[in-house]
C-alpha cells in the first residue's frame, strides 16, 4: 500500500477530473453539454496548433483549413454524394486526409519558418474557402452539407437507434457525443503530452530556440518542421470531425480566417507550448461567446443579439474581450493561463516551508519551469 500512495496522490487530481467529466451528462442540460462538446473539439484543435506554434515556434493561420478538411472529409466519405463508407472508417480516413493535406503543404511548411509560415498558411484558408464554395458536388457549395451521424458497431451517436436511458437519464445526441468527445480528447491529451515530453518534443524545442544549434545537434530541421505540421493538421482534422458531428451541418463560412485567429487566441491565452494551457484557452474562447449570448440580458453593456445598430452584441463583446485578453496576457503574463496557474501553485507550495532569505527567488523547480516558459514566450531565432 505504501508505494501506491504517492502514485495515487500524483494521479489523484487527474482521476478526479476524469470522473467529474464522466458524471456531468447526468446533471447538465443540452445547452451546457453543447458548450462542453464545442470546447472539447476546440481543445483538440488547439492542442494540435500548440504543438506547431508553441513548441515548434511555427506560426500557423491555416488551422481553419485543416479543420475544414477533417469536417468535410468525414461528411463526404460517409455521406451521399460520396463513397458512403461506414462512418467510423470515414472518420479515421478524414483525420488521415487532413494529415495528408498537411503533408502536401510540407514543401512550404518545412522550409518557411516562423511568422513567414503564418502568411503562407493564410493562403490555405482563402484557397480552401474558395474550394469549399465552388466544388458543389463534394462540399454542397454555400449552403454546406448535413452531417451523417457516427456509428460504432451498431451504436449510433444520434437521438435514437438504439434508445438509451442510463440511470433514468435519457441519452440524446449531446450525451452520447459528450463521451465520444471525452474519449477523443483523452487520446489527444496523452498522445500530445507523450510527444512533447519525448524525443520529438525536445527536438522541436531545440529547433525553435536555435535552428543552427539544433541542426548541429543532429535534428533534421526540414523533416521535424514538416512532421510537426502534419501532426498538427491531423489533430485539426480530428477536431473538425468532432465539430461536424456536433454541428450536424457544415457550411464554408464557418471555416474562415476568423476561426484560425480564434485558435491562435486559444493557445496564446492558454500559454504557448503547454497542453493544459491550450485546453484552458480553448474552453475560454469557445464558451465565452456562447455564454454571453445566453446571458446577454443580464450583463451590463451587452445588448441582446440583433437589437439594432451601434449596440454591442454578445458576439462583439466576447471578441473585444478575447482580443484584449491576447494583448493583456502578452503584456503582463507572457506564459498565459498555464504560467499563471503554475506560479500560483509554486507560491502556495513555498509559503508553508521555512522563510527564504530575500533575493533567492522562487524554488528551483519553479525557476527552471519559468525559464523554460520564457523561451516559450520569446521564440528565439538567430538571423543576421
Amino acid at each position, binding site marked *: 500500500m505504501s508505494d501506491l500512495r504517492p502514485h495515487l496522490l500524483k494521479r489523484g487530481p487527474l482521476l478526479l477530473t476524469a470522473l467529474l467529466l464522466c458524471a456531468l451528462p447526468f446533471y447538465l442540460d443540452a445547452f451546457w453539454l453543447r458548450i462542453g462538446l464545442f470546447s472539447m473539439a476546440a481543445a483538440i484543435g488547439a492542442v494540435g496548433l500548440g504543438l506547431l506554434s508553441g513548441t515548434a515556434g511555427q506560426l500557423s493561420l491555416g488551422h481553419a483549413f485543416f479543420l475544414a478538411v477533417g469536417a468535410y472529409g468525414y461528411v463526404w466519405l460517409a455521406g451521399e454524394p460520396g463513397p458512403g463508407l461506414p462512418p467510423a472508417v470515414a472518420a479515421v480516413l478524414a483525420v488521415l486526409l487532413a494529415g495528408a493535406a498537411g503533408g502536401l503543404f510540407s514543401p512550404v511548411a518545412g522550409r518557411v519558418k516562423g*511568422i513567414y509560415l503564418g502568411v503562407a498558411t493564410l493562403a490555405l484558408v482563402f484557397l480552401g474557402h474558395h474550394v469549399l*464554395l465552388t466544388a458543389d458536388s463534394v462540399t454542397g457549395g454555400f449552403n454546406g452539407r448535413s452531417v451523417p451521424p457516427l456509428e460504432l458497431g451498431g451504436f449510433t451517436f444520434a437521438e435514437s437507434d438504439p434508445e438509451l436511458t442510463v440511470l433514468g437519464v435519457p441519452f440524446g445526441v449531446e450525451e452520447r457525443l459528450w463521451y465520444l468527445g471525452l474519449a477523443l480528447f483523452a487520446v489527444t491529451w496523452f498522445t500530445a503530452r507523450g510527444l512533447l515530453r519525448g524525443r520529438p518534443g525536445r527536438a522541436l524545442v531545440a529547433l525553435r530556440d536555435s535552428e543552427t544549434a539544433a541542426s548541429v545537434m543532429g535534428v533534421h530541421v526540414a523533416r521535424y518542421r514538416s512532421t510537426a505540421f502534419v501532426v498538427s493538421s491531423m489533430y485539426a482534422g480530428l477536431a473538425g470531425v468532432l465539430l461536424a458531428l456536433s454541428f450536424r451541418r457544415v457550411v464554408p463560412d464557418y471555416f474562415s480566417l476568423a476561426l484560425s485567429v480564434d485558435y491562435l487566441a486559444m493557445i496564446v491565452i492558454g500559454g504557448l507550448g503547454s497542453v493544459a494551457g491550450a485546453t484552458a484557452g480553448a474552453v475560454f474562447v469557445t464558451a465565452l461567446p456562447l455564454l454571453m449570448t445566453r446571458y446577454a440580458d443580464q450583463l451590463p453593456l451587452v445588448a441582446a443579439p440583433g437589437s439594432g445598430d451601434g449596440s454591442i*452584441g454578445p458576439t462583439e463583446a466576447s471578441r*473585444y474581450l478575447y482580443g484584449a485578453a491576447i494583448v493583456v496576457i502578452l503584456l503582463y503574463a507572457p506564459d498565459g493561463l498555464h504560467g499563471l496557474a503554475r506560479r500560483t501553485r509554486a507560491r502556495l507550495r513555498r509559503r508553508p516551508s521555512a522563510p527564504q532569505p530575500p533575493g533567492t527567488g522562487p524554488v528551483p523547480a519553479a525557476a527552471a519551469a519559468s525559464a523554460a516558459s520564457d523561451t516559450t514566450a520569446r521564440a528565439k531565432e538567430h538571423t*543576421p
Partner: protein
Amino acid sequence: MTGFLDSLLNGLALGSVYALIALGFVTIFKASGVLSFTHGSLLLLGGYLVAVLHDDIDFAGALAVAVLVTAAVAGALDRLVLQRVGGTDPHAAHVQTIVTIGIDIVLVTDLARRIGGDLLPLGDPWGSAVTDLGPVTVADSRIAAILVSAVAIGGAFALFRFTPWGLSLRAAAEDREAAALMGVRLTRVRTAAWCLAGALAALAAVFLVAFPAPGLERTTGQIALKAFPAAILGGMTSPVGALVGSMLIGLTEAFVAGYQSDLHVLGEGFGDVAPYAVMVLVLLVRPAGLFAAKGAARV
C-alpha cells in the same frame, strides 16, 4: 485586345494600391521585425474616418485628417503597446506579431460594429466618371489610384534615401546593435515607421473602395491581407521587392478576373484568391521570396 488592355490597366491600378499597403508592411518589418496584422484595421479606420468626415469638411480635408489620425494611431500602438512587450529586442518580434493580431481583433470588431451592414460612400471627387484612353475606357478613380500611389511611393522612397530618418531606418535594418551604438534611437525609428505605414494604409483605403468597388464595408480590411503575398513575394525586407510583388499580385488578380470565362475550371471568383495561389507557387521555388537578402546564420 481591349480585354487585355483593360485587365492590364486594372491590374496596374490594383497593384499600385497594394503597393501602398505592402510598402507599409515592409517598412514596419525593416524597422521592428514585426509582421503587422493590424494593417487591415488601420486601413478600415482610415476609410471609416473619410466616410464619416467627408460630409462636414470636404473630401480633401477628410482624407488629410484620416491619414494623420491613422498615422498617429499606428504610432501610438507601437509606442504604447508593442514596445512594452520586449521593447526593440528582435527576439520579441514574434510575440509582438501576435499582439498585433489581438489589437486587430479589437479594432476590427469595433469598426465593424460601427459600420454595421451598411456600404459607406467616401464622397471622393472621381465618382463614377470614366475617361477614354484610345481603345479602352478607364475609371477616373483607377487613374487617380495609379498617379497618387506613384507620388506617395516616390515620396516614401525619397524618405528612405535622403532623410536622416531613412538613413537610420536602413542602418537599423542592416544591424540593429551597431546602429544603436552609433546613436540611432531605435524606438523613434520604429515608431516613425509605424506612422508612415499607417498613413499609407489610410491612403490605400480611399482607392480600394473607390468607384468600381461599391463602398466601404466591414470586410474591406481583409483586402489588406492581400498585400501580404505581395510583401512576401518581394522578400519582406526590400521596398523594391514589395513594389514588384504588388504589381505581380495586382496583375494576376486582374487577369484572372478578366479571363474568368476561360478559366472556369478554377471556379467562380478565383481572382480574389489568385494572389495566394501565386504566393504558394513562389514560396515553393524560393522560400525566402524573390528579392530577399541572402541569409547567413551566425551562432
